[in-house]
């Protein structure tokens, strides 16, 4: 219930946040909405010596249209994603995923950047960002680099983000007017996904399918996508959903059940496109 003590630094700018990260090294954590970090700290699963609060960097909270892309600031809350008209028009899948996160209180505080950086294998937004061919823009001491979402998640709660980097933008391919679906299966309504699926139709006729709860990271269902691209009917393609996945086998669900759920949910998502 009580986090361990830490030094608190409120960043006044992105530059200051980066300087703090560089200075404190592994002992520092960034605090945005705090809805991934603080719960872990309260259970003392994480005990950082320094917290750099970037929550007031309003310049990191935005949704903009940039040509064919929707660009989202990392401090944008789930609440904003649910309600933002640009998101609704151009990347409605993102809103659909945001709507299924936790509960209203959590969505009021939690941010897209925090959620992605936390890299939980069952994070709803991760599925949407993957299916929207997202690019995560990281800024570090040596400048800015783009990380494709498909390369961002590297393991259970680990990402390609370096310790001295800050996620400064999420760029998503606009999918204006195209079919999408977000299917989430959880025990209770407010729980994390046991398995979840984000599906997004693409202008070139391809369909992107992303899975959560099906491995150590959120991932793209490559075999399903290829099958669909090859003209295999959706009902058959969905049977390939768990191919190549190594889902957890634990008290929440067995691996076999997760694999089955993946097929069912991909089937539902494709049917809803």
């Amino acid at each position, binding site marked *: 219930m009580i986090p361990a003590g830490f030094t608190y630094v409120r960043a006044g700018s992105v530059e200051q946040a980066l300087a703090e990260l560089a200075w404190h090294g592994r002992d520092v954590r960034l605090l945005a909405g705090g*809805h991934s970090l*603080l719960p872990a700290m*309260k259970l003392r699963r994480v005990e950082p010596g320094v917290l750099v609060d970037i929550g007031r960097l309003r310049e990191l909270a935005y949704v903009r249209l940039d040509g064919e892309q929707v660009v989202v600031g990392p401090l944008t809350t789930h609440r904003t994603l649910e309600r933002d008209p640009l998101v609704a028009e151009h990347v409605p899948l993102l809103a659909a995923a945001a709507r299924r996160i936790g509960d*209203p209180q959590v969505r009021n505080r939690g941010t897209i950047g925090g959620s992605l950086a936390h890299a939980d294998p069952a994070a709803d937004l991760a599925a949407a960002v993957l299916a929207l061919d997202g690019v995560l823009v990281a800024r570090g001491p040596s400048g800015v680099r783009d990380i494709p979402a498909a390369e961002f998640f590297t393991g259970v709660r680990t990402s390609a983000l370096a310790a001295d980097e800050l996620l400064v933008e999420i760029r998503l391919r606009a999918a204006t007017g195209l079919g999408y679906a977000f299917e989430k299966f959880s025990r209770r*309504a407010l729980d994390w996904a046991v398995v979840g699926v984000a599906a997004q139709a693409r202008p070139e006729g391809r369909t992107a399918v992303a899975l959560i709860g099906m491995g150590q990271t959120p991932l793209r269902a490559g075999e399903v996508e290829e099958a669909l691209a090859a003209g295999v009917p959706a009902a058959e393609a969905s049977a390939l959903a768990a191919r190549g996945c190594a889902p957890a086998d634990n008290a929440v669900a067995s691996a076999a059940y997760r694999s089955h759920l993946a097929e069912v949910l991909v089937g539902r998502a494709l049917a809803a496109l």
Partner: protein
Amino acid sequence: MRVEITVNGRPHEREVEPRLLLVHFLRDLLSLTGTHVGCDTTSCGACTVLLDGVAVKSCTVLAAQADGCEVTTVEGLGGPDGLSPVQEGFRQCHGLQCGYCTPGMVMAATALLAERPDPSEQEIRDGLKGNMCRCTGYQMIVESVQWAAANGGAR
């Protein structure tokens, strides 16, 4: 560190540990014990307050993060002329038994009605899904919120 938080309209300046949770700031430093703690995993919602007008779980906000912000707790609802419509709805419809989850439930319901003055049953259940109650089985809470919606809303 020093924080200044306006709670129920009154500014409070205090020296706090950076790790102090907002809920403990309210309960232990300001003696506003209406805001309760029911879990340690951001699950139950008993600690729900309004932070700059939106519902948050105050067990998962640092007092430091609320520095300079406005907080409304259950003590800040209603007034000399009586209970707020949401509070009155809970009384009329038996939306509480032990009363422990109630302040958080009332705050979440107040926030819900502020955004959706006339919610459907499904919207009420969806809007309050972050608040757990062990006594009522929830139906009479739903009825309480419906009563409030029909009798003044989120005032």
